[in-house]
């Protein structure tokens, strides 16, 4: 009796488990669908892409030594059904944009179809394509270019500290309004008469490198407050985007980027941060051995043993927009770092720290070979603030009392 019950139970269970959907695995790409998403071989291999407005001239190659070139125009997406088909076969293409926001597409194939907006995204379905339809085995379309949001900027936290609905940019990635990851599901239904006999699917999706490149494209030529300089930072090549390198030894704080992409453009920021940190540590040791430094009132001040804290390295354009007023900010080029003295902001310890750091950089300017400025609220200190001691009157020039960080970049 037991065996009689167990046998069918075993078969039923196996059948049931096999029929369960395999969650988390990507849907299998059909080998009969040949996909072209980009003229860039690396993007194309990953079925990834960037979206460039028709007729727009953009420069790519962001690093000092990179040979700049014009970024190629948007290649239409071409999905080709490579299998030979008989005359009694009908085809039907379906494009599903994975988000409502990316819905608009420009259909370049000659055949007709209908688009519908669903909560989950936009779906376009072609009519049934029989032998009379030319090129029915090739689906060709373009995504609509992304419009940079918003067009008006306000810097800062906004009223009552609420930053999220104020100003532009985002610290996160794949945010619909700012830096969405575009993706399309493509389905080809193959019919014999009215009966569906095969379904082929494939998936086009921006990878992280192209998401970063798309951010640069979206920010090309923008202005803050509709005035001032235009942002015209070149778009990085895929080869210029790499994994985050380790931070210099003894430098506290953030990695070389806080970006969630976990990728970075490094155009000398690592070496610069290393040089600044090494010289600063050396100076602190020297001054402490000497017993301190003389302030403006010729009074000897103890030099605290505060380290440097890396607050910012490479920023993707959206993050830069969130934090900075500088459309062309060098943080986006991978050539700039911000450092903070590891002491309470605007305390006497931090003032002395910035003073030591400043003197160190000036003494070693040839070796450091870069540009630096002390900043407060993103604005550089004035020349006279390096001499005057007005508020607070403490024997330390005002620039060092007020600074909230030191910005340094390689020479551009």
């Amino acid at each position, binding site marked *: 009796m037991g065996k*009689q*019950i167990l046998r*069918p*139970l075993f078969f*039923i*269970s196996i059948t*049931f*488990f096999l029929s*369960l959907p395999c969650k988390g695995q990507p849907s299998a790409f059909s080998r009969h669908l040949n996909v072209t998403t980009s003229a860039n071989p690396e993007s194309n291999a990953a079925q990834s892409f960037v979206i460039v407005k028709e007729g727009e001239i953009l420069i790519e190659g962001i690093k000092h030594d990179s040979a700049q070139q014009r970024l190629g125009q948007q290649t239409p997406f071409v999905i080709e059904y490579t299998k030979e088909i008989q005359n009694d076969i009908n085809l039907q293409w379906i494009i599903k944009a994975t988000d409502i926001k990316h819905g608009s597409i420009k259909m370049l194939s000659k055949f007709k179809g209908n688009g519908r907006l669903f909560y989950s995204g936009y779906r376009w379905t072609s009519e049934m394509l029989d032998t009379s339809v030319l090129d029915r085995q090739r689906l060709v379309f373009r995504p609509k270019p992304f419009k940079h949001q918003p067009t008006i900027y*306000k810097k*800062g*936290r*906004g*009223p*009552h*500290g609420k930053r999220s609905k104020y100003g532009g940019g985002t*610290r*996160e990635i794949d945010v619909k309004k700012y830096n969405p990851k575009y993706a399309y599901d493509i389905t080809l239904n193959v019919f014999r008469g009215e009966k569906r006999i095969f379904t082929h699917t494939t998936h086009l999706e921006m990878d992280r490198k192209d998401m970063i490149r798309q951010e640069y494209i979206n920010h090309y030529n923008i202005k803050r*407050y509709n005035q001032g300089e235009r942002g015209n930072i070149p778009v990085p090549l895929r080869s210029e985007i790499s*994994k*985050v*390198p*380790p*931070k210099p030894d003894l430098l*506290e*704080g953030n*990695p*070389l980027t*806080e970006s*969630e992409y*976990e990728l970075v453009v490094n155009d000398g920021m690592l070496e610069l941060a290393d040089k600044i940190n090494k010289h600063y540590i050396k100076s602190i040791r020297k001054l402490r051995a000497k017993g301190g430094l003389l302030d403006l009132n010729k009074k000897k001040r103890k030099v605290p043993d505060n380290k440097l*804290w890396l*607050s*910012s390295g490479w920023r993707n354009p959206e993050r830069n927009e969130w*934090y*900075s007023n500088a459309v062309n900010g060098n943080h986006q080029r991978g050539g700039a770092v*911000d450092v*903070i003295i*590891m*002491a*309470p*902001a*605007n*305390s006497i310890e931090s003032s002395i720290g910035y003073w030591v750091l400043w003197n160190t950089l000036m003494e070693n300017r040839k070796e450091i070979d870069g540009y630096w400025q002390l*900043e*407060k*609220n*993103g604005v550089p200190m*004035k*020349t*006279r603030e390096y001499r*005057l001691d*007005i*508020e607070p*009157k403490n024997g330390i020039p*005002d620039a060092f*009392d*007020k600074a*909230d*960080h030191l910005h340094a970049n390689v020479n551009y």
Partner: protein
Amino acid sequence: MEFLMHLIRQTISTQMLITKARKLIAFIMLLTVSTTCLSNAAPRFEDYFQINPGLNIKIANKITSHYLDNKPLSTQHKDELEQLDNSLNKLLSKHTKNPAYWFLKGLNHRNLAAYYHSKKQFKLADEQIQKKNTAYQKAIELDKAELKKLSASIYSTMKFGLPEDLKIQATQQELKLGGSADSESAYWYLHWSNIDQLKKAGRDKEAEQAYRNMQKEMKEQNANMSVYSALNQTIEQTTFNKPTTDKKPETSKAEPPPSKPEHSQKPDKPLDRKMLIITSIVALSLISLISLMIYELKIKRKRK
């Protein structure tokens, strides 16, 4: 610009005003010139202080320019600053309760102090600093009481050189408004500044509470603790003089920040898995029961 003005003058001359079309042209030109002028006017106050609390923006922009410009200070500057002070006094007689005007007044006194200091007239500079502090005190009191017109950036500007208690108030208001610096780190350092000031003022309990608030906020904001635990430890050691308990965590030899799951997947992922497991167990047991029943029924029929 002069050329355009000349053109306008010509356009509006009596002879030209005869025809309607010419009137229209004159109007369009006027409109173009005025909008060009407006768009060229740098909104410096709003840009830098991140707020427009409904004040005379022309005066506000002038004072901000004097504060931010990196030019050597001349007698002409002084005259202009004194004129601005007069204009502000007139405005303040009408808007006594507007903290933004009190802030502007303080900022203008600060500009004057910079002028006197650069001319080595230290006594006059000190007088201006006193006036500045009084104006800032008024601004902070009014803003705290009801109006809430001032931004974090304004508080960040005001806090320097204020007496201890007022400086703490300004720092705390700046914190409440989310800080004004341009990085996440700078915001946590502002917290540290608040804690440190309270501690130095002998307000130990408040300092400890401020530290707890900072940590709570770090948790709420999902701050990267592989980075910020080093900061917390330093605060404990230096500000609270607590001995080091354990070894500092390796603060990332540039360990990339822990990857956060993407937005859309955040709430879905664990829920999906749970649902899948529950539905599979329920379905499996149902199917097993049904199949068992069918099987037993078949056997019974056979026996019959």
